C-alpha cells in the first residue's frame, strides 16, 4: 500500500532554521514499522532525515517521536495501526536539535535528581542475596520496566509548560526504589517529590500512561507516590 508521510524537518546547519515539513510517498506493508519507513526514506530517498534508533523492537527507547500527534516508539508503531497518512514530529518539550533528534540532557538530569539507585549498604553476612518475597518484588515490578525513552515525560501537559517539573519518567524511576523493600531512602525520595516540581504537579491527564511503550501504569505509579507522601511515608 502507498503511505503518505509528513516529516518534521529542522536543521539550521543546512539553512532549515524554521521548522517545516517534508512529504514522502512510499510503498509499505501493513506490518511495517514506522521506523522501517524512516529507514527506507533515509536509505533511499533523503539521507539527511535524522532520528535516533537502535534496537528496533521497543526495548532501548531511542526512537520516541510524535506520530500522528501522539508519542510512540517508531519501532513499535505499525502502519496498520497508525494509518497510511503519517505525520512524524519530535517529542515535545525538549529542545529540538535536528529533525526528530531532541536534547535529552534535561531529561536525564531530572532522572538523576531523584537518586535512581538502591540505597542500602547492609548485605547479608553470608554474602548471598537479600531476601525479598515475591509479593514484595511484585510491588514495584511495573516501574522496573522503564526504558527512559521520554515518551511519557514529553507527553505531559505540565512538562510542556514547566520543565522544572521532574516529569513522569523520573517519578516512575523513583517509584521503582520507593516501593522496593530493600531500599532505605524511600522517605528521602518522597520528601523531594513532595516539593513543588514533584509529584503534586501531576494533573492526571494520563497522556504518559497512554504513551508508555512499556505499558507502565505511569499515572497510577505517580498516584501511589502522592499517596505515600500524604500518608507520611513508606515503611518496609
Amino acid at each position, binding site marked *: 500500500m502507498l503511505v503518505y508521510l509528513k516529516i518534521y524537518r529542522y536543521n539550521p546547519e543546512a539553512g532549515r532554521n524554521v521548522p517545516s515539513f517534508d512529504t514522502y510517498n512510499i510503498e509499505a506493508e501493513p506490518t511495517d514499522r514506522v521506523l522501517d519507513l524512516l529507514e527506507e526514506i533515509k536509505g533511499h530517498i533523503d539521507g539527511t532525515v535524522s532520528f535516533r534508533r537502535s534496537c528496533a523492537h521497543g526495548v532501548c527507547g531511542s526512537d520516541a517521536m510524535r506520530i500522528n500527534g501522539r508519542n510512540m516508539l517508531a519501532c513499535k508503531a505499525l502502519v496498520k495501526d497508525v494509518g497510511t497518512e503519517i505525520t512524524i514530529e519530535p517529542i515535545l518539550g525538549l529542545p529540538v536539535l535536528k529533525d526528530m533528534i531532541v536534547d535529552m540532557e534535561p531529561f536525564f538530569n531530572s532522572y538523576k535528581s531523584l537518586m535512581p539507585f538502591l540505597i542500602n549498604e547492609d548485605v547479608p553476612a553470608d554474602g548471598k542475596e537479600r531476601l525479598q518475597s515475591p509479593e514484595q518484588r511484585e510491588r514495584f515490578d511495573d516501574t522496573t520496566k522503564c526504558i527512559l525513552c521520554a515518551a511519557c515525560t514529553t507527553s505531559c501537559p505540565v512538562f510542556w509548560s514547566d520543565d522544572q517539573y521532574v516529569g513522569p519518567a523520573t517519578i516512575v524511576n523513583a517509584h521503582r526504589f520507593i516501593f522496593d523493600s530493600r531500599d*532505605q531512602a524511600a522517605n528521602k525520595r518522597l520528601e523531594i517529590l513532595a516539593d*513543588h516540581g514533584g509529584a503534586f*504537579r501531576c494533573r492526571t491527564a494520563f497522556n504518559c500512561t497512554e504513551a508508555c511503550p512499556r505499558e507502565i501504569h505511569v499515572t497510577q505509579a505517580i498516584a501511589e507516590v502522592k499517596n505515600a507522601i500524604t500518608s*507520611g*511515608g513508606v515503611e518496609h
Partner: protein
Amino acid sequence: MASQVKPNFETTAWRFMRYSGILLIPLAWFHVYLQDVIVGVHAIDIDYVAVRLADAGWVTYNFLLLLFAFAHGMYGLRQVMFDLVHKPSTRRILSILMLIFWLVVSAIGATALAMGARPELVQ
C-alpha cells in the same frame, strides 16, 4: 523506619483542593441552580439580595461559599501560574500578589455579606 515525610505547603494545599472541592459541590451547585435556574437573573434585584442577606443562615452559607470557592479558585490559578512562570523570584512575587488579591477580594465580599445590602441607597 524512623523518618516520616512531613506535610509541606504543597501537600497540604493538595489535600485542601480535594476537600474543599468536595464541599463546594453541594454549596456551589445549589447556589448556582437556585439563583440562575430557579430564581433566575430576571427575578434578582437588590431587594431580593437584601432579603437574603438579612437571614443569618444564608449569610453563613454565602460566607462558606466565598471562603472555599475563591480560595480553591485562586490556588488553582496559582497552579496555572506555576505552569507558565518558572523563575522562582517571579513565582514568589506573583504568589504574593495573588495572595493579596485573594485577601482583598475576599474581604470586600465578606464585608458586603456581613453588612448586608443597602437598597435604601439606590437612587
